[in-house]
């Protein structure tokens, strides 16, 4: 399920916002490791800096201090030593994102929401992009819904399309910010199971930010962030380890 060598390391990461009396420091000297094939969750009270840490680890927000080291084609690199273009290229090759709102283009079909990532990102020809999009949609239980627009889909279906968009590049890393909070738990459970399968079957390193305790049984490791400090919760590591990940063919 996970190998020993970490795929991502955040080392002494710190971040502050604002000045003077308005200054806040959501991250104080945070260090963590993530591994291949691992589903990790980052929890904490509202405003505790979970999303800030996610943004820094995923290359979207620069820290004030610290390093974010990633394994990139066998070489460990600090993403915050890269140029903006290199970071963009790294995200294109390695990173997938899922956000709380589905953020699907209202005028594109489910299939096109996935195609566009390949066609615009790496210039994949339309036929191949369509084929891969259909494959991913089938794995997500949306094989017969590729032609549908977001307005015609349920919340759970939309989030699954968003997951498909995140994973169609077969990224090594996937960052999810509150992926279940906009959904009924029935759908939310499906989403977490899909992410877990993506980690275990595809070997992705997945970091989920959530305040939803119900997902804890599904994750391999959980971290807790409070007042800028990060603590790994030993008790939840691999509590679902004995349970085989469900196939991607979840019920619609």
């Amino acid at each position: 399920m996970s190998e020993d060598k970490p795929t991502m390391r955040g080392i002494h990461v710190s971040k502050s916002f604002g000045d003077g009396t308005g200054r806040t420091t959501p991250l104080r000297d945070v260090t963590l490791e993530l591994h291949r094939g691992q589903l990790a969750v980052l929890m904490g009270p509202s405003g505790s800096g979970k999303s800030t840490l996610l943004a820094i680890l995923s290359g979207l927000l620069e820290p004030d201090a610290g390093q974010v080291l990633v394994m990139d084609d066998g070489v460990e690199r600090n993403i915050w030593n890269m140029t903006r273009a290199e970071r963009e290229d790294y995200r294109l090759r390695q990173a997938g994102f899922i956000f709380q709102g589905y953020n699907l283009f209202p005028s594109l079909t489910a299939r096109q929401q996935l195609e566009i990532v390949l066609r615009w990102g790496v210039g994949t020809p339309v036929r191949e992009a369509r084929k891969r999009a259909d494959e991913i949609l089938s794995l997500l239980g949306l094989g017969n819904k590729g032609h549908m627009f977001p307005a015609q889909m349920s919340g759970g279906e939309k989030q699954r399309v968003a997951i498909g968009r995140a994973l169609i590049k077969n990224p090594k890393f996937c960052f999810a910010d509150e992926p279940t909070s906009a959904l009924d738990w029935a759908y939310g459970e499906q989403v977490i199971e899909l992410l877990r399968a993506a980690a275990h079957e595809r070997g992705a390193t997945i970091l989920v930010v959530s305040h939803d305790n119900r997902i804890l049984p599904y994750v391999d490791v959980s971290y807790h962030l409070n007042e800028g400090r990060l603590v790994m919760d030993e008790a939840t590591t691999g509590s679902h380890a004995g349970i085989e990940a469900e196939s991607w063919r979840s019920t619609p």
Partner: protein
Amino acid sequence: MGYALQTLFHERQRYLPGVLAVAFSGVLIALQCGLLIGLFSITSLPIDHTRADLWVGSPQVLSVDLGRPVPEKFLSRLASIPGVEPPEFYNQAFANWTKPNGGSDLCMVVGSRLEEDALGAVSELTPELREKLTEPNGIIIDESELDRLGVKGVGDTAEINKQKVRIVGLVKDVKSLAGPYVFCSLETSRNLIAIVLPKHHSTYILAKCKNPADVERIASELRELYPDDMSVFTSEKFSIRSRMHWLTKTKAGVALGYAALLGLLVGMVVTSQTLYAATMASAREYAILLALGIPRWRVSWAVLVQSFWVGLFGIVVSIPTSFALGELASLGGIKVRLPEWLLGGTAIITLGMAVLSGLWALRSVRQIEPVNLLR
């Protein structure tokens, strides 16, 4: 390009203001220019509605209605050129019209031969009307000018340059710009504008070429032979020259051009705002694409392609609208001409404006930051 078009169709209400703004600009430009062209085509009417190929007049004559007398002996200059059919005289000059009940106005006396093969008689003068013009001091005017000239119809009399004239017939759709056209015979015109036309002079000498293909060559030949004391034009070039003179010398062209430019600016602002708003409405979706590493220029390109389609649809709406409004104007007696080159030029300008609007709307793309999705 497929996604851009699909988005435009799917969210057509969002993009409709932009399309209408482009259409508005296109219609404004086309109609303004069409009005100008229609308006100033009136000034070249004596050229466009007659049969002459060559117009010989005073040196550097600017427009057909501004000719000064040339000696009648110049006729032999044309007659001596092989390939030129027998030339003839033609007179045109402003004159003073005195109304029967007092008051006066400006008019444009146009005198020509009246025979069937006459080069200077406008096509609206039917053989019957030309027959009537053989009456000494008989004149024909456009029926829409009756009120302006203070007369009621055929048979009425008035004075031109203090000479009594009688209306022997009426024509239609022969409007003028400065003063109403007054058609008459060559002899009558000599009487009426004697004050500006010395003896043995005429305003122009007209000729037709046996072979239409020789017109340009013969005109050049005459210009070379007689460079100083007369000007020689083909009818086509003289028509353009006359119209362009009025277009550039009067402020009407400037005023309408200014209005067209304002219309273009308004169109650009609305189109740009439409595209800006549409892009920002999808800012989160674009932000995800940027988070996924898709280059920002790719998103910018999508916005530009959208602006192109908005422009194209705007043009498609503007063309029939321009024609419809032009027809409406003609019902009110206003001539609007929409030649193909004008419509093509308008399409290019409005499409360019739409794409420029897209470039301006790109400031929206610059504002999209993936990290904002996490806040």
